[in-house]
């Protein structure tokens, strides 16, 4: 079966498909991934901050039940496989977007899957901040809010950028899966042509493009993280 994938006929077909569909698919993949990541960061970043500052010895201790609730919600959402989550949130997607199929609709499950993940990544970044520096800020008379926005977040920027890169590449992978519920992009092409219609060459090319996009995101992310880190002597 595989050997048929590289015949001259298969190449001609693939080139035709690439010319007609790939530009849009790449655009849809990028658009869905970036938008879903941004929305997930907007929700996940504050939650990640709360996970750290709300602890018993944190700078803004929160009620124990609230912390337990927060932790439970994040863990539950993180344990549901994305494939199942996509189906479970269909009613919510319909309520927000008006439809449960299509490229825009696929953003909703992506955000729901990504924000708890991002909250945990933010949590781990903020935990790296030297507690002595937080003590310094307290001794200088900083409010908890000032400690968060002037110390904890700025001091962990390099780590936050690294983790944002992990998040965006993971979300890219999920977005490819959303081809199943009609989300557009390279994932849809890979599934529709490769899985349903046995056009393996098209599938390979779609996968290679996904790999390339991950590679580009990772390189940009690493570069930004290193550049932002003032602890390294330049």
């Amino acid at each position: 079966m595989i050997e048929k994938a590289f015949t001259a006929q298969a190449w001609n077909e693939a080139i035709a498909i690439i010319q007609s569909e790939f530009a849009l698919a790449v655009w849809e993949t990028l658009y869905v991934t970036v938008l879903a990541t941004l929305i997930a960061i907007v929700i996940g970043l504050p939650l990640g901050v709360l996970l750290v500052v709300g602890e018993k010895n944190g700078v803004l201790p929160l009620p124990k039940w609230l912390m337990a609730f927060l932790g439970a919600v994040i863990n539950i959402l993180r344990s549901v496989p994305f494939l199942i989550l996509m189906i479970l949130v269909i009613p919510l997607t319909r309520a927000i977007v008006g439809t449960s199929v299509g490229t825009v609709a696929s953003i909703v499950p992506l955000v729901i899957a990504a924000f708890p993940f991002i909250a945990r990544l933010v949590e781990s970044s903020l935990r790296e901040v030297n507690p002595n520096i937080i003590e310094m800020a307290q001794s200088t008379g900083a409010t908890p809010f000032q400690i968060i926005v002037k110390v904890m977040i700025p001091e962990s920027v390099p780590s936050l950028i690294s983790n944002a890169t992990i998040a965006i590449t993971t979300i890219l992978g999920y977005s490819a899966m959303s081809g199943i519920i009609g989300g557009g992009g390279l994932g849809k092409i890979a599934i529709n042509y490769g899985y349903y219609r046995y056009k393996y060459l098209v599938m390979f090319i779609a996968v290679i493009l996904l790999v390339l996009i991950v590679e580009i995101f990772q390189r940009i992310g690493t570069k930004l993280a290193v550049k932002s880190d003032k602890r390294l002597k330049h």
Partner: protein
Amino acid sequence: MIEIKNLSKTFAGRSDPNEDVEALKNVNLSIPDGSIYGIIGMSGAGKSTLVRCINMLERPTEGTVIIDGVDMAALSNKDLRAKRKEVTMIFQSFNLLMQRTCLKNICFPLELIGVKKADAERRAMELLEIVGLPDKANAYPAQLSGGQQQRIAIARALATNPKVLLCDEATSALDPKTTHQILELIKEINRNLGITCIVITHQMSVIEEICGRVAILEKGVVVEEGEVADVFAHPKSTAARHLVYPDGGNSEILALREGEQRIRVVFNGAVATERPLIAQLAKELGIEASILGANTKSIGERAYGNMILGIMGSRDDMLRAKEYLESVADVVVEEVTE
């Protein structure tokens, strides 16, 4: 004036009250305005807890701290934050914000109280001059040496014109030469700006070099308190003896010989280069002294520490030697009897 009254701090054990740790037990101290006050103790003596109780980073279990008539323990969180502009702190690990330039680090406390950016930066530049690093404004802390980082931390601590500067092991991570320079800077700040400095350390040399008074802390209790020179010359408590004579004082040196008199010569910053004391003792008085043990060091031109001399001769010879040695400024001599 800083008054520490009946201060106790107990850290609760995990579940069992028997595991409670009493970090401080009924500490009473008065620290006069404008002084450099030392608090010394071995690690685990409670020094860090004590200094953190002064600005209420740690809430005392009992007792209170009164700064200029204000009871720190009674302040609301908001008032306490305002008060912390007046009682600032420097640390062993400098604790600079690593992602900010030096200038921005010094601006940090000013930013917190909403000082305009231009005004804050102007003030920060002034402070960089004071600490002697005007060319490091745009450098990041990682590009600086330890001593330079501590200077930036000092500049930051001075930004809000504090009345009190708490120095928590501020020189413990520095080499002796840099330690000396930082201590000089603290002395200068104390003299020129009239800021009361509370110096927490485990190094007697730091106390010797800059403090007027000292409190010795052992297992959460103040075991000795007084003028540095007095504590040095006549350490009463075991803890003080350990700190003043880290090598065990005279207990580990040769047994007393027949007809030998012993004296302890304490140097409290005597000018060391003026004359060779022991040689002159022999030449001028004909008294031969052997050095049985010594723990002295020079800081700048001055000598600190003590040595134990054995003198073969009568008690009278010993007294003459004592008188002779004490004629040198900042040298104290005491008989060793035990």
